[in-house]
């Protein structure tokens, strides 16, 4: 792996050059003080914010909250019969986009979405379009945020692979690791922005990564939770308690970088035409599994949140060999009922301990 140094003063000029070839997306502090991954139209007025955790993830860029899949149109004969009922795909444009300042958990989440949308099953051409020409410059987290537990899900605070370029803040400079070919090309094409990394910088990077690991404020026993679930120990009481607290708002799934369930519905435009749209959906919603005649094979009262946690901690481990929780902690900040990943894991482990001591 090649390593380089990028002086902090050179960052904006580099991004300016890159923005000629790429649409630029980075964490930007908006006028309300929120930091969100946003498209940057004007580098000079945008406030790139690498100090806060972006409130949302990259998910909406690859899998928009609402996206038209196709248009449909109908011709009728004089009896009202459907003589033509045709569908016209509406594919998104695939603009080359540079995602800058991406957190490790969010990069890992994109790689998880890849599994869902085009590796394990049929190729989802809409996702593929958004994803095709994407380049990622990630940034390691020297100071994990209060709700983060990516150390426990092994998705951060620094990445070992998956990035095109990974930056580490080492003071006046960024230490730059090149990952995939697109990252190497950037370093080659704009080589005058980068200098060679020496032993001192390498040590500084190593030190930063090491220290970061010790700075997590919450201890979350992800491995233990997986083990308990794998052993078939379902904490029924915990599910019941959490289902009771869940208000069915979908916030946890919408904020989660790896929740990718969706709905598809028709949006009429005229009597004889309309759009077929897909929108985010959430397994915590009461109607998610409801079939016609109000039959629901999933008992919603007790099982509402069960699917969400089992999917992330058990089912994905079975099918993909890893959890689909990236430890980003966003659901912790989102849920006003306190039904989040950390809460679940903590309750589950306590429940288990209580069972063992026979309390």
């Amino acid at each position, binding site marked *: 792996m090649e390593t380089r140094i990028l002086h902090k003063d050179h960052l904006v000029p580099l991004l300016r050059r890159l923005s000629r070839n790429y649409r630029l997306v980075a964490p930007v502090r908006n006028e309300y003080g929120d930091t969100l991954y946003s498209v940057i139209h004007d580098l000079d007025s945008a406030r790139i914010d690498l100090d806060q955790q972006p409130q949302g993830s990259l998910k909406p860029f690859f899998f928009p909250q609402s996206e038209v*899949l*196709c248009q*449909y149109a*109908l011709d009728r*004969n004089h*009896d009202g*019969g*459907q*003589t*033509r*009922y*045709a*569908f016209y*795909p509406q594919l998104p444009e695939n603009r080359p986009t540079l995602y800058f300042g991406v957190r490790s958990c969010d990069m890992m989440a994109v790689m998880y979405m890849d599994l*869902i*949308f085009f590796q*394990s*099953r*049929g*190729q*989802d*051409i*809409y996702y593929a379009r958004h994803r095709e020409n994407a380049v990622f410059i990630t940034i390691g987290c020297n100071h994990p945020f209060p709700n983060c537990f990516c150390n426990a899900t092994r998705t951060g605070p620094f990445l070992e692979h998956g990035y095109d370029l990974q930056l580490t803040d080492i003071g006046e400079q960024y230490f730059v690791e090149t990952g995939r070919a697109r990252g190497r090309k950037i370093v080659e094409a704009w080589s005058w922005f980068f200098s060679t990394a020496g032993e001192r910088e390498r040590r500084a990077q190593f030190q930063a990564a090491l220290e970061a690991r010790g700075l997590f404020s919450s201890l979350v026993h992800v491995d233990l939770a997986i083990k308990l679930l794998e052993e*078939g120990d*379902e904490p029924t009481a915990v599910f019941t308690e959490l289902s009771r607290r869940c208000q069915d708002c979908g916030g946890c799934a919408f904020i989660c970088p790896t929740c*990718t*369930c*969706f*709905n*598809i*519905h*028709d949006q*009429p435009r005229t009597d*004889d035409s*309309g759009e*077929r749209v*897909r929108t985010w*959906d959430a*397994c915590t919603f009461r109607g*998610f*599994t*409801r*079939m*016609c*005649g109000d*039959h629901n*094979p*999933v*008992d919603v009262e007790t099982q509402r949140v069960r*699917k969400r946690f*089992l*999917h992330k901690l*058990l*089912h994905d481990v*079975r*099918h993909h060999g890893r959890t689909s929780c990236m430890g980003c902690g966003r659901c912790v900040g989102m849920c006003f009922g306190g039904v989040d990943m950390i809460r679940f894991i903590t309750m589950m482990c306590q429940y288990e301990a209580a069972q063992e001591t026979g309390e």
Partner: protein
Amino acid sequence: MKQTNSTPHRKNRERARQFAQMSDNIYLPCQARVDEIIRENDQVLTFVCSFEDVLCNKDFSYVPGQFMMVSMPHLGEAPISFSSSPTEGTGFRLTVRRAGRLTSAMHELKPGDQIGVRGPCGTPFPVRELEGSNLLFVGGGIGMAPLRSVVQYALANRERYGDITVLYGARTPADLCFRKEIGLWRRQGVTCLLSVDHGDENWTEHVGLVTELLDQVQVSPASDRALVCGPGIMMRFVLQKLVTLGLEPGSIWTTLERHMKCGVGICGHCHFEDRLVCWDGPVFSMAQLPDLENL
């Protein structure tokens, strides 16, 4: 809860992948024409369909147990199983019970009208693995539709299968489908036993639960394979009974129903524990079903 990440599970996925690779846009329906409509009963119609595009007709193939995502204008899509067998000529049949908005709109269709379809989706019944066995079908209500597909398939390949027995139950005589075909099947040597919950003055066959019909047939665990489809509760009792009669869970096959949106294993709606019914199923062997509570 025990996990059965067995080989049949993987094999199912391979089969489903075939469709996923067939089309470059898995969400895009194509146009099919309703050529003929057969009234099965008050609530159920069979639509005989073919593709508008001749090339589609030529390339199209499916295996019993698979389904189509059917579109109706402004009403989105619903999964509907093939009730025909690919051996019945080009095109396909869908047998649809009026259940809600989309299915009611289908009941307004006239011959010549177009519908949108995409598929085939899902994993079929293992028609190859079933060769050489006696086939015991147990259907309830509209659940007979996907089973009809296999019966027709087996009759078209008669020499490959042993005895064929069809046990079919409905609420009342008027709720039975495929009455004409049942007569044809009987003439071809298929044992058909019918049952209704409530009979009428003309009803001469069994009154009661479809499970009771199982007492009237000889089940030989070594050579029989069972194919079951119907409402969840009926399936539970039938499956349990088949096991007490000595059938191995691995030789009992069912097709499950779930809320579906994408039909291709991505949207998450049809989850059944760690499986997706549209992708890992809808056909499952009983050995793949950890518990029968939530069918």
